[in-house]
């Protein structure tokens, strides 16, 4: 064991007298005991909380978009909150297209054994962007990239916001949006043509290509093929 080792123990801030965690039972649809952090956010950030609900025992705090980064930073840093674990970042679009898109952060406070869902509402028609929490949680990197990939929501401040699951040249749009048909935007024949024309192993981003010094010496035609991921060798 190294000298500097200090383990992180879930529930450590609760003290030894705290009741052990138990499986929740008979949870009401609405109401029930709320996570005290919801109240704390409302006090700390006056006017930033749009609404707070308890649905199926889970506390949901809908906050103002402009202040969500400050709120999450405060939840992470404040010794009475210590939300040190980011479970998930995702978005929800409703079938009712009038309803705003929700961006959802699922936060856990390991020392206090709390779970909190923070939401931001994005009105349709305006630009879909929210601040990135990558500077607070490194784990948000891929989660935010996936959310951008699937919903087209821009996380401002993310250092490397590229498509993650779809390829970079993917032109059909954002698959998890409700106006995106289940079969995709392009016809089957067009999708097949593009799939056959692509050579995934020859697809490098510009950044990766800059690693190879020899790239500059390649013929222009080959450089173009490599950068666009076209099939090579036939």
């Amino acid at each position, binding site marked *: *064991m*190294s000298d500097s*080792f*200090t*383990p*992180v*123990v*879930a*529930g450590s801030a609760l003290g030894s007298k705290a009741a052990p*965690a138990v*499986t929740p*039972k*008979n*949870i009401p*649809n*609405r109401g029930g005991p709320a996570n005290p952090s919801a109240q704390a956010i409302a006090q700390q950030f006056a006017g930033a909380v749009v609404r707070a609900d308890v649905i*199926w*025992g*889970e506390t*949901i705090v809908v906050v103002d978009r402009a202040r969500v980064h400050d709120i999450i930073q405060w939840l992470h840093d404040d010794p009475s909150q210590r939300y*040190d*674990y*980011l*479970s*998930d970042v*995702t978005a*929800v*679009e*409703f*079938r*009712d297209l009038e309803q705003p898109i929700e961006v959802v952060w*699922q936060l*856990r406070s*390991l020392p206090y*054994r709390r*779970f909190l*869902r923070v939401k931001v509402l994005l009105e349709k028609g305006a630009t879909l962007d929210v601040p990135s929490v990558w500077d607070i*949680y*490194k*784990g948000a*990197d*891929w*989660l935010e990239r*996936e959310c951008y990939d699937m919903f087209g929501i821009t996380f401002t401040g993310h250092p490397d916001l590229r498509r*993650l*699951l*779809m*390829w970079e040249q993917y032109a059909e749009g954002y*698959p*998890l949006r409700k106006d*995106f048909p*289940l079969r995709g935007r392009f016809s089957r024949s067009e999708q097949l043509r593009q799939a056959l024309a692509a050579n*995934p*192993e020859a697809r*490098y*981003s510009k950044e*990766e290509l800059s*690693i*190879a*010094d020899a790239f500059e010496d390649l013929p222009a035609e080959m450089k173009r093929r490599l950068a666009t991921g076209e099939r090579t060798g036939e």
Partner: protein
Amino acid sequence: MATKKRTVEVELSTTGLDAEGRPKRVPFVVDENGAPVAVEAPPSIEPDLDAEHMLINIGPQHPATHGVLRLVLELDGETVVRCIPHIGYLHCGFEKIGEYRQYNQIIPWTDREDYLNSPGNNVAFALGAERLFGIEMTERCKVLRVMACEMSRIISHLVWLGTTCIDIGAFTPFLWAFQQRERIYNILEAWIGARLTTTLTRVGGMGADLPDAALEHLAAFVNGFPKVVDEIDRVVTRNGIWVGRTVGLGVMSPEEAVNYGLSGPMARASGVAFDVRKDFPYLDYETYDFDVPVGTNGDVYDRFLVRMEELRQSTRILEQAIKRLPDGPVNVDDHRVILPPKSKATSDMESMIHHFKQVMEGPRPPIGESYVALESPKGEKGYYMVSDGSSKPVRWRIRPPSFVNLSAISRMVEGHLLSDVIAINASIDIVMGEIDR
């Protein structure tokens, strides 16, 4: 990056038998006094940024990437300077498809994401959907689900163990692990009829009750399995080659592990005592007696030790579950979600209506949302479901543990050798089906 030094007593069981008749364990590396010598982590070379760097592409079709992961590595000599992972080759849009399916129809899709943990995924989805419906499952169902979760944890860890051993150069433990895995698949086959893609649960219950014969097989498995774990332990844990290839690689400190969102054995090996079963319990896990193993160094070797111990703890939980399995119904007595017996469908008006409504429309949860997480073999597996009151979810989000764990690979491989990338990648326990969904 500084590497941590640690002492592991290295032994090999190659010569002779000891007093108990087991292979004698002699130190593999000894100093002049005959004492075992500590194997230190391989030195990580400070990259020389002025030198010419090389671009190496591993994958997407490479056996050591455990699926279709592609790693683009920038190398300085043999040292990794930067690693850019590419995923998405298996992307099938599970979350999109889920928005077009009724709740029970989604359960087969959950089999196919993390296909080493199908029963566990089924349970996770059923728990999430039941919270959305406001249903409390029966006592027997609860214990059966605990059994399913722990069986799939053993399957997943065995596959991880076997494939990682192969990656690092040991073949025998792979065969032993897959033999045991086969026994669990036989039990699952007797239970539900399928082996890999089980579709074990339904909203409000299980697809089938556990037959008595399968329960006996499970009891026999629980009896014999710890011996196999001990055997693998004996062959691998103190093996000089194994230790030399795993110690000190991919170190994550506890704070880093939490910040990167690591969960499961990955986080616990780094010294983060976080287990969803203990800290945010479900299925009455707080009433089972089991320990959560926690590592101290957060390297590949610690992840191996944690998973080995989890195999033993899962066996303990299975033992208790077999003992406490109560009699009684498996499915809830709620015909909003569970079909009445088929024989009644043609003789009882109300049952026929329930059959018609459920098959044609599907069960409808009230408006609401739920995030239910459980401890899958890879970490915190969460299902976030949003309902607008119709029979299909508005949003079905999978929180894939190995996706978040893999996102830290760039951080973990930096400064290590190219050959260690394989060991570090194996230690994450990735299933690309879950990462790409």
